[in-house]
């Protein structure tokens, strides 16, 4: 196992598209880092270059302190789990697992020992004689992981390994992946567009968009302190509400309700509030909203509302729509007027132009003072 480092890695395709721009990342030995972002954000390109399947246009990639940029994929001692598993269809499960070791001229009894060991860890021992076509989706996924793990590689690369599984299986395998990583502690770089996987599995996540790193940090940190609007909107499910708000009298106002003091020098701001932080109040003080539609989900419900910026004459200017996570017991009808309450510490502000987070320091203070008050 080893640490992995990207140094100012850029990938430019012949058609001029920059898939990755001066990408820097240091993955510590044994760390589990997840590259997350929408499709086309450069995360897969970064992974493929670490595997040696693509060559960077500039920059260097290091594994265990050694520059491997010019090495072929077979010389890097890394293993990869492909999205569609890429199991060799003409080989049995055993041969699939043994293949990489045989390429490295590992002794026969050693291959056998390791295949049996990994087979035991993954619970696929009884499948070893089967061909990939005879396996279920979940079994194939395990074999694909086994094939990578059995090599005991310097680093373990996973390219959307769960995306071909159904929702139920995905949850199981996710838990299992976490268990395996805790047990074996292999340096892992994992690519996904699913922020739930990113939140649950990673030691650190690297949120990417359009070839650039948006934020790098521990999942909870990124979740609680998104650096910009993109991260805020990407992390969390359902997604954070992002609504343009007005600044008047030193306050940020949404739906005729002052939310928190406005940061100086930013006349145009976007307010970010997570759906679970909004609640329907009866006190009368809060954000004025109109119900758009209602999605009951069993344990809770999502209420989609339109919030106004205020009324000018008779025309109501709609600032945008917000989603409220509410109890399952309410069933508002479209057109119903509601008042939404929110704690100032749950209100994020972003610059409308740059998307950068604003006033995080003030929000911190609110949180801290809130804690102090509670004590």
């Amino acid at each position, binding site marked *: 196992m080893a640490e992995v480092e990207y140094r100012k890695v850029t990938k430019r395709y012949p058609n001029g598209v920059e898939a990755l721009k001066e990408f820097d990342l240091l993955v510590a030995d044994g760390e589990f880092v997840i590259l997350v972002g929408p499709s086309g954000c450069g995360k897969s390109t970064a992974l493929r270059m670490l*595997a*040696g*399947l693509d060559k960077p246009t500039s920059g260097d990639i290091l594994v265990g302190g050694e520059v491997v940029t010019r090495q*072929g*994929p*077979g*010389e*890097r001692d*890394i*293993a*990869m789990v*492909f*999205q*569609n598993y*890429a199991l*060799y*269809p*003409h080989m049995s499960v055993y041969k699939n697992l043994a*293949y*990489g070791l045989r*390429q*490295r001229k590992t002794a026969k009894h050693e291959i056998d020992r390791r295949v049996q060991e990994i087979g035991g860890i993954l619970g696929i021992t009884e499948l070893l004689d089967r061909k990939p076509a005879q396996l279920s989706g979940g079994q194939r996924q395990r074999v694909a992981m086994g*094939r990578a793990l059995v*090599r005991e590689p310097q680093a373990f690369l996973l390219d959307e390994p769960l995306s071909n599984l159904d929702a139920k299986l995905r949850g199981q395998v996710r838990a299992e992946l976490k268990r395996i990583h805790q047990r074996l502690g292999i340096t892992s770089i994992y690519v996904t567009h699913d922020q739930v996987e990113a939140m649950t599995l990673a030691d650190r996540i690297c949120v990417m968009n359009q070839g650039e790193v948006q934020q790098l940090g521990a999942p909870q940190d990124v979740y609680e302190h998104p650096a910009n609007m993109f991260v805020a909107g990407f992390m969390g499910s359902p997604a954070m509400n992002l609504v343009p708000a007005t600044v008047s009298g030193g306050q940020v106002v949404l739906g005729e309700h002052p939310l928190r003091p406005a940061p100086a020098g930013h006349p145009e701001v976007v307010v970010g509030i997570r759906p679970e932080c909004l609640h329907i109040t009866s006190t009368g003080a809060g954000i004025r909203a109109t119900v758009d539609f209602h999605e009951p989900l069993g344990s809770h419900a999502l209420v989609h509302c339109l919030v106004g910026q205020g009324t000018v004459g008779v025309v109501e200017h709609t600032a945008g729509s917000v989603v409220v996570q509410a109890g399952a017991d309410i069933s508002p009808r479209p057109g119903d007027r509601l008042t939404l309450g929110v704690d100032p510490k749950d209100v994020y502000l972003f610059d409308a132009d740059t998307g950068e987070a604003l006033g995080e320091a003030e929000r911190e203070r609110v949180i801290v003072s809130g804690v102090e008050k509670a004590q």
Partner: protein
Amino acid sequence: MRRPSPWHLVLIPITFILLVPFFWMLITSLETEAETRRFPPVLWPASPQWHNYVTALNAAPFARFMVNSAVVAIVVVVANLVLCSLAGYAFARLRFLGNGALFAVLMATLMVPFQVTMIPEFLIVKWTGTNIWSQLGIDHLGALIVPNMATAFGIFLLRQFFLTIPVELEEAARIDGTSRLGVLFKIVLPLSMPALATLAALTFLDSWNSFLWPLIVINTESHMTLPLGLTTFQGSHDTNWNLLMAGNVFSLLPMLLVFFAAQRYFVRSVAATGLKG
């Protein structure tokens, strides 16, 4: 019991008409020479003359022809499988300088009929025979083998098939430490058996039945392949129809056996070229 389908009344006559030439060949091959010279013809020999086959075999070195045909066909098939795999894989997966242009030029040769190239080919073979190695020259088996060891058709066929194999399989193998050659032989080719079987079947058929090129470059009986040998045999026994038919049966037999054994592949191969063409 189900009643037999009325279609048998159509299928049996069709089959009979298609097979009459074979039946008549077999019957004639067992007749005496006098029986072949009767009109109306004798429909069944008074006593089958099995020794006609012995006589025919003694009259011309059929075994030799067969060995020559087999050697040429087998070497040509194996060479095509190996060389077209290598080139087909390069054109399918490797980004090397000039691959597009080279591929286009190779494919262009597919359009040119053999008659255009045969005269210079004859001159080239004559030259290599005198200047490089006599075995590659006129009147040697090498002249039948070397020019046919790789075909643009084979490269095209395999390249198209290789393109359908998921590239992740090859990437996985390369991460596992396999060289390009290893990827081709351990991953790609085992998955390309249908295409390889098609190429093998078509190449074998082509080589075995080839006539014009052997006619041009082979003169000595001991270097002749079956079709050419049969032609010279026919030339010298053009009135001994019973012996001619015996020789014909004998020369047809190996290909028929191969055909029955591998009928699936032959049929699939021909059907595939038709559906894609």
